[in-house]
């Protein structure tokens, strides 16, 4: 055990500016070939039985053996005719379930010739106004069913005269709206029925059930979203975007939920379990996956995609007072990455992370299929983070040069977010925190205590002055911890 050292110091912290991108040599990044001539708009990826399904947003689905991942040939045109598909779960090499604009569809190649013959609608009992923003992400429920995360519509686009499903004039009001039934909800398809599961979403372009049976859904900055929130979704909860409440019998049209005050929404909602800053974290939160044991680090944590920047994020869940919350840090920011990171899948050996990319519709084109491999054996990153009484317990991936730690080594600030009907938001009530002490628990682990730790704030820890015993700096030093609860 390293002797305990204790230092009291006060720091001023410059705001974390835009980070210049370079190449992170800890990772190997490869561009992977797509079928020749296709617009590389990857709506979804899925892997089963050593085959990769590639789902493109104009509606084509291709499949190839993973052994041919780097070959330009080997793609089989598996299916066509899907409307902006953004979710996929494979049931076998010949059967794929896809969420498209109007439907959850089970596609099957019945005769084994590689070309799908049958497109069964598992459910289409949700509305569609014709607006471009009502896209659907999906994941397995682990028990033969599926969760579908349904986007709201945007006032930047029109609706149609002919609406699929029930229409709500009250739900039509607002910046992002829920004029068609179940827009803004996470739905559960189980035993042949589609049931409402949780409400209050804006554009949940990523939903994932992890190995601990936790259901995560991200959302995108916008109205009622001051940053990019990540939620642990539980049945019956409302997640803060009020448009969807027109379809909740406890509210409905008559209650005019789109006019609810911020205070009323606050009283009803489940707050984000992880708040991810927009500029310094994730601009557009998309696909979510769990990092497998064999990736090389961070097993059991989540990797999340930024659909609008050359980076992937990492989420370290933490449990305080029986509530999940946790930390966000980048997994990789790298000039070699495209910026339209949308869907993620690990190869079965767990060592390679595939990224399907698209930005058609907004933003600069930054599309395709890439992969990330952790190739370093001497990674120096934040490994885990726990909130402790009065501070944080940080475990690094490599031994820390404790003697190099000085008064500047831990720069901490904290702030809050205020979610309102306005689009996005900046950190508010920003405070520079005073580090009261730090001590070494072992070669990998530091305990940092703050003079004051307060629930309901996001803590930004800058580890830019923490070094390994071989003098490496932290690859991704900016850590954001959402302290909804404190011990």
């Amino acid at each position: 055990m390293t002797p305990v050292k204790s230092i009291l110091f006060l720091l001023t912290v410059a705001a974390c500016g835009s980070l210049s991108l370079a190449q992170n040599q800890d990772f190997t990044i490869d561009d992977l070939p797509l079928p020749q001539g296709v617009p590389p708009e990857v709506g979804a990826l899925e892997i089963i039985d050593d085959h990769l399904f590639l789902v493109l947003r104009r509606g084509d689905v291709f499949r190839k053996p993973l052994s041919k991942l780097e070959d330009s040939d080997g793609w089989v045109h598996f299916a066509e005719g899907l409307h902006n598909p953004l979710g996929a779960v494979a049931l076998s090499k010949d059967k794929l379930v896809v969420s498209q604009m109007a439907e959850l569809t089970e596609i099957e190649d019945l005769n084994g010739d590689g070309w799908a013959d049958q497109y069964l609608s598992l459910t289409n009992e949700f509305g569609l106004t014709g607006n471009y923003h009502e896209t659907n992400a999906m994941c397995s429920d682990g028990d033969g069913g599926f969760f579908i995360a349904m986007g709201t519509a945007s006032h930047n686009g029109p609706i149609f005269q002919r609406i699929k499903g029930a229409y709500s004039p009250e739900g039509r009001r607002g910046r992002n709206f829920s004029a068609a039934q179940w827009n803004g909800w996470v739905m559960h398809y189980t035993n042949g029925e589609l049931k409402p599961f949780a409400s209050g979403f804006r554009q949940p372009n990523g939903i994932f059930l992890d190995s601990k049976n936790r259901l995560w859904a991200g959302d995108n900055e916008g109205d009622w979203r001051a940053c990019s929130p990540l939620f642990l979704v539980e049945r019956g909860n409302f997640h803060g975007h009020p448009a969807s409440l027109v379809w909740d019998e406890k509210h409905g049209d008559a209650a005019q939920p789109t006019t609810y005050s911020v205070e009323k929404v606050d009283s009803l909602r489940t707050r984000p379990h992880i708040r991810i800053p927009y500029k310094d974290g994730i601009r557009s939160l998309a696909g979510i996956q769990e990092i497998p044991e064999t990736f090389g680090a961070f097993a059991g944590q989540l990797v999340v995609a930024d659909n609008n920047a050359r980076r992937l994020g990492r989420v370290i869940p933490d449990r305080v007072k029986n509530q999940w919350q946790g930390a966000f840090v980048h997994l990789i920011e790298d000039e070699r990455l495209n910026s339209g990171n949308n869907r993620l899948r690990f190869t079965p050996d767990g060592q390679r992370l595939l990224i399907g990319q698209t930005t058609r519709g907004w933003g600069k084109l930054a599309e395709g299929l890439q992969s990330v491999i952790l190739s370093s054996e001497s990674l120096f990153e934040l490994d885990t983070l726990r909130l402790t009484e009065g501070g944080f317990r940080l475990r690094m991936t490599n031994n820390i040069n404790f003697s190099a730690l000085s008064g500047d080594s831990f720069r901490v600030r904290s702030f809050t977010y205020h979610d309102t009907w306005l689009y996005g938001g900046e950190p508010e009530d920003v405070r520079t925190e005073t580090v009261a002490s730090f001590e070494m628990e072992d070669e990998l682990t530091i305990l940092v205590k703050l003079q004051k730790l307060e629930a309901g704030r996001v803590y930004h820890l800058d580890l830019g002055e923490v070094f390994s015993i071989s003098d490496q700096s932290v690859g991704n030093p900016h850590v954001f911890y959402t302290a909804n609860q404190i011990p």
Partner: protein
Amino acid sequence: MNRTAYCFLQIIAVSTGISSAQLSYDNLPMGSKEEPLVLRTYVPDIGIPSEVFENHSEGLSTKQYRVRERKETDEEVPPIAGIPACIAVNYGAHLSFVWDTVECRLLYAWKGGFFDMSNYWGSPEKGNRVGFGYLPELVGSVTYRATGSWEAPSDRANAQPIFVGLRRDGPKMVFLWKSGSSSFETEIKPAEQPGQLVMAVNQTKPKVETVTLLSLQKEGWEQKKGSQGDGPHYLSPIQQVEITQTAEDPASLPVGVERGKLLYTRYGCNACHTLDGAKSHGPTFSGLSGSIRDFAGTTISADANYLAESITEPNAKIVPGYLANYMPKLPLESKDIDSLVLFIQQQAQ
């Protein structure tokens, strides 16, 4: 009907894309008679009577929403003439049709082409490749358009039809659906005559030995009962439908605010630049013209030159807080740029 009576109202183009049904950047996707192309997309409502949409809800006009004030204005935002959940099928220039998964019936058929998807897919030349016109435009001439409430088969229950799926069998499309406790299969394949198709509706549960054969007459559906094996019935076209291209071409307008306004929506500027001061991915146009732009110490007045440069060279000057390399360069001619500048200047008033 005499085939010579057809009037080809509009034949825009035939796809020059790759022959495979695999979609490409070609905004005129086409299948062939042997290998049809199935495309699920938003489709235009070509003037189909309301009674056809008995299982749809009606989208209503709403008031323009001022996002910053959280208030509505008096300006009406009407719904547009689209249908959200159809399956479109193309057999090359020979035949296209649209089958609706909400009404579970054929909505329209045409020949001479399929869809021009530019409005929805955007064009590769447009930088961010996005269209804001939403609805694809029909290519070709319409040979059939649904009218009247669905009357056949008569034993279709009064319950709302529910789409079950699509089975593909070569050129034949089999649409599976149910209504109440009954299940049906609607088979459609191209007829020999261009623009015509063969359709039969079979009740599969409870199984009946008769096939409902549909024939289209001027006054609506005429229903016949036949035996299995009678073969399907040919649908006759009853009317030609004039398709009007409603989208106005900005190039047809003189330099001015109106042309700029049209370009503002046509190029999707509205996705990132609001007109009401609200925050978005790019600076709002409200009050932009003539304002002082602060570039970390250096200030510039947003005059016409600055606005024009920001349109033609989006990365030349990036106001702190916005992203470089975000706005695409657009294929604009000088009249377009002048018009956009005038439109932006108007937003300062």
